[in-house]
């Protein structure tokens, strides 16, 4: 009786196992090298003044403060618009919708939006907001375009967390005679807040990483913007971190600055991923 694995099966086993380990090692190795290289090139250029000043040829400073401010601008404005819309849509889908067909249409639209590449958003955002609505290339036009992009993310995560709220909570509240909206406000939304927060964090991640949209709906100026009056606020326009990276790398050939920005973007990505997974874990509990 042959009690050992045949040579060909042993070879298959060994070969397959090697392939799996190699692929996983390659994936991880790639990431480690990527992070290592970016930090190696980028960290030396990061200093307090790099983060807190604007670039100035006169004073010979390189600073990315304007890009940081612009990034915060688009994050805040997009979320302020997208959050109510997205949460509202999710509430409609899980709490109110009775027409199966309509739900399918809305969900299909949401999926479609999620699959559209950002260069298309850039093109359409430019036509709609910058040209048709005469907003010109401004941070407002960029933020509004970003709203369309992050909407699916917010709708989907909110919808998922609304679904996890036990039906008994709803019945309990309605049984006490409260109206539907009151029930949603006092029972459903508070118990799904973690999911909404996760959705926001993921949306922030997408906004921070986005470049194409911002390159074609906002100007690429790296100078400091003036936000002093409402009018100026509406008209301000300048590069966010990703766009500034592109400008420094591709147009100015200032690679040290580009790598420093890349390092900051990397750090932000890690931070965002960590908070999202923490919020997600809390959600599971």
């Amino acid at each position, binding site marked *: 009786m042959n009690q050992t694995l045949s040579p060909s099966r042993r070879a298959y086993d060994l070969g397959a196992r090697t392939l799996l380990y190699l692929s996983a090692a390659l994936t991880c190795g790639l990431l480690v090298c990527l992070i290592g290289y970016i930090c190696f090139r980028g960290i030396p250029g990061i200093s307090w003044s790099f983060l807190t000043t604007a670039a100035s040829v006169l004073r010979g400073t390189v600073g990315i403060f304007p890009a940081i401010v612009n990034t915060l601008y688009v994050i805040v404005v997009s979320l302020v618009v997208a959050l109510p819309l997205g949460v509202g849509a999710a509430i409609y889908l899980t709490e109110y919708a009775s027409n199966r067909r309509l739900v399918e*249409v*809305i969900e299909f639209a949401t999926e479609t939006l999620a699959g559209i590449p950002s260069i298309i958003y850039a*093109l359409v955002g430019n036509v709609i907001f910058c040209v048709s609505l005469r907003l010109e290339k401004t941070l407002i036009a960029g933020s509004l375009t970003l709203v369309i992009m992050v909407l699916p993310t917010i709708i989907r995560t909110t919808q998922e967390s609304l679904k996890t709220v036990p039906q008994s909570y709803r019945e309990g509240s309605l049984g006490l005679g409260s109206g539907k909206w009151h029930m949603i406000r006092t029972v459903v939304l508070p118990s799904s807040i973690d999911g909404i927060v996760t959705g926001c964090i993921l949306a922030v991640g997408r906004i921070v990483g986005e470049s194409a949209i911002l390159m074609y709906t906002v100007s690429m100026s790296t100078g400091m913007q003036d936000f002093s009056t409402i009018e100026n606020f509406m008209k301000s326009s300048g590069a966010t971190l990703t766009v500034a990276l592109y400008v420094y790398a*591709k147009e100015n050939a200032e690679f040290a600055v580009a790598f420093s920005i890349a390092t900051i973007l990397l750090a932000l990505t890690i931070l965002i991923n960590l908070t999202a997974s923490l919020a997600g874990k809390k959600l599971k509990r």
Partner: protein
Amino acid sequence: MQVLFLVCGLIAVAFVLLITVYLILSGIPAIREVGLIDFLFGETWSAKNNQFGILAMILTSIYGTAGAIVIGVPIGFFTAVFLAKVAPPKVAAVIRPMVNLLAGIPSVVYGLVGMIVLVPWIRVTFDLSAGDSLLAAIIVLAVMILPSIISVSETALQAVPKEYEEGSLALGATELETYFRISVPAAKSGIAAAVVLGIGRAIGEAMAIIMVAGNVANMPSLFSSVRFLTTGIAIEMNYAEVGSLQRNALYSIGLVLFLFIMLINVLLNVVLKREKED
């Protein structure tokens, strides 16, 4: 209250319609002026000479995506099998966040590293005058689609019932034989969905490859400077005057790209529906 929420829900639908209508309305004029055949199958794109043929870009997008899939799918698939089946839980718990991080890194960062590391490497290795090429774009795209391929395939593999695997092991199959002959076929529609998703990602990416592909609208070959549909839009967007034929032709490229994406979405839905039925 209900009406308000209904409006929110309909906004997503409105956006899709708005995007579709705008793309069609602004994409048609240039196609009409150039002629559909000349537009789609013209080999030369030159705004200076008023020539707007996008065949080179279409082919570049197809070749580039295919190349990224050929490289990215095997690596991603094997990594997913490793994570779902072979890796000790502690190792998997370290690798998964790394894969998520890979997914979260902004495209311009990939573009930057590609431009500074990959492009010179290709120039030196293959003894070219410039390293900006289809090959560079393919490699960058392959890395960028890895995370979606890994996480979607892993989810599909995790969902394979344990009973199937036990049945195979009890017949005397080795663990690896079981994973590849039972688990992988059982997860095939999920894995197919991962590949389709990867295709969508690759064909839609613009900013990372604009930094490494050279952006000359040549007919694609591995070592030549090329322009994708996405980068074709991106590279001239900020220069083409509103109302000009060049500008309108960019919208037409957008329309073509949009049709590609919709086709992929339909494909994805078919695949996912089949998965649900399984």
